């Protein structure tokens, strides 16, 4: 059973590595969005200092959301997904494998890049660690919830905007606690509660999201 999971992850990672441009584009998008904020609101250091966690988190949210479409769309287009649905492996395992591979290609690079952007905003070192940690816990939730939205909008008219409309409201708790934790640390408080709640969301979405994504895929192929 785990052989199937491993091969799905390996396959999706290999496919993404063959199209490295896609992954890089999302990272560049992330950096550009973060850069836009100081240009928009002015480079006042104190303001930047307080806004930095929110800016980085919102940009990460948008970048993760944009990358969701490639989660199922290309497999849907060439019929691979249909073969996966009728294969002997449980669909839940396939979906979980695809989500994990997606996280490796979207959430993990964002997590690694975010502290560098945090330095631009002059965040204290401890806050940088918490920023990376909160993204490490939070971005899997983005991939998990996003998988449900991606499966629901599979092959639907205006899928891109619709996907954003469905998924962004569900991302709100992650944003609140992710950015809140970093802000708490830069204000000299502990980030423990925020990170714990993020972990709780991760646990909850681990249970609910794969099931919902499977149901949505079955609906799409009914």
């Amino acid at each position, binding site marked *: 059973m785990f052989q199937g999971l491993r091969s799905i992850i390996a396959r999706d990672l290999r496919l993404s590595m063959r199209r490295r441009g896609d992954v890089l584009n999302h990272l560049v998008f992330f950096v550009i969005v973060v850069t836009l904020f100081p240009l928009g609101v002015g480079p006042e250091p104190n303001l930047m200092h307080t806004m930095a966690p929110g800016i980085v988190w919102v940009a990460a949210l948008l970048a993760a959301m944009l990358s969701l479409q490639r989660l199922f769309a290309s497999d849907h287009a060439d019929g691979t997904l249909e073969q996966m649905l009728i294969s002997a492996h449980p669909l839940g395992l396939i979906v979980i494998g695809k989500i994990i591979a997606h996280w490796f290609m979207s959430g993990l690079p964002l997590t690694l890049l975010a502290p560098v952007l945090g330095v631009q905003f002059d965040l204290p070192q401890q806050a940088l660690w918490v920023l990376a940690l909160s993204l490490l816990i939070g971005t899997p939730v983005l991939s998990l*919830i996003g998988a*449900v939205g991606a499966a*629901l*909008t599979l092959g*639907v*008219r*205006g899928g891109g905007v*619709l996907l954003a*409309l*469905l998924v*962004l*409201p*569900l991302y*709100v*708790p992650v944003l609140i606690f992710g950015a809140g934790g970093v802000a708490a640390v830069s204000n000299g408080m502990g980030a423990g509660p925020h990170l714990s709640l993020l972990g709780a969301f991760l646990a*909850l979405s681990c249970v*609910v*999201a794969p099931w*919902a994504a499977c*149901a*949505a895929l079955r*609906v*799409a192929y*009914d």
Partner: protein
Amino acid sequence: MTNAYTLAAHADGRGNPMFRFAAPQAFFPLAGKMIPWFAMLAAVFAAAGLYVSFFVAPTDFQQGESYRVIFIHVAAAWMSMFLYVVMAIWAAIGLVLNTRLSGMMASAIAPTGAMFTFVALWTGALWGKPTWGTWWVWDARLTSELILLFLYLGFIALTTAIDDPRRADRAGAVLAIVGVINVPIIYFSVKWWNTLHQGASVSLTKAPSMAATMFAGMILVALAAWMYSIVTALWRVRSIILERERNALWVRERGGEA
């Protein structure tokens, strides 16, 4: 799976009586008969509730007369959350039992729910201006109510974007069930984030911290909103049934009568 299909197959009125009205054909006339009754109840409750809230309930010693918008605000906020849960329950029933009517009910409830969410936000702003001195605060409850509105709009957008009605119903059902996790977060957000919004003043466990007439007005308006929701949902579900079954024999025969 076979079980669900047999249940649906028996739902034409001859099988299990519990599922008799699960057939759109059987439910259509029943809904038509129920609408006037619930409409009457809604009118009576609304008249009584608005009379109590605007003429009987005492003036608040801190907030003056402007607090009276809260009667509509509270009822709308209650209904906005309640309707989302009801919608999700119908959606879940539709997914599990594979009955057509459940999905229709879910999509019939959504616009009313979105309307009440909007009314709750709007009246909240009207109340906030004289009381807090601002139309909008980024407080947890306000924000989560806004997110609830987004969830309703997302549900409506998804179900209207999919052309096949059966797929639209079931995709919407998955979304509604995922979104319903957000409703308790809204409700408990008062405890989670301690902010500007006043705590819940009505609770089931302790006596309400307000005058009895105020409480009565609030309950009456809430009942009116509830009955109104039933009327609009039934009304809308009748239209949906006609639209989807327009090629069915019974609809054509009805069309011939009228």
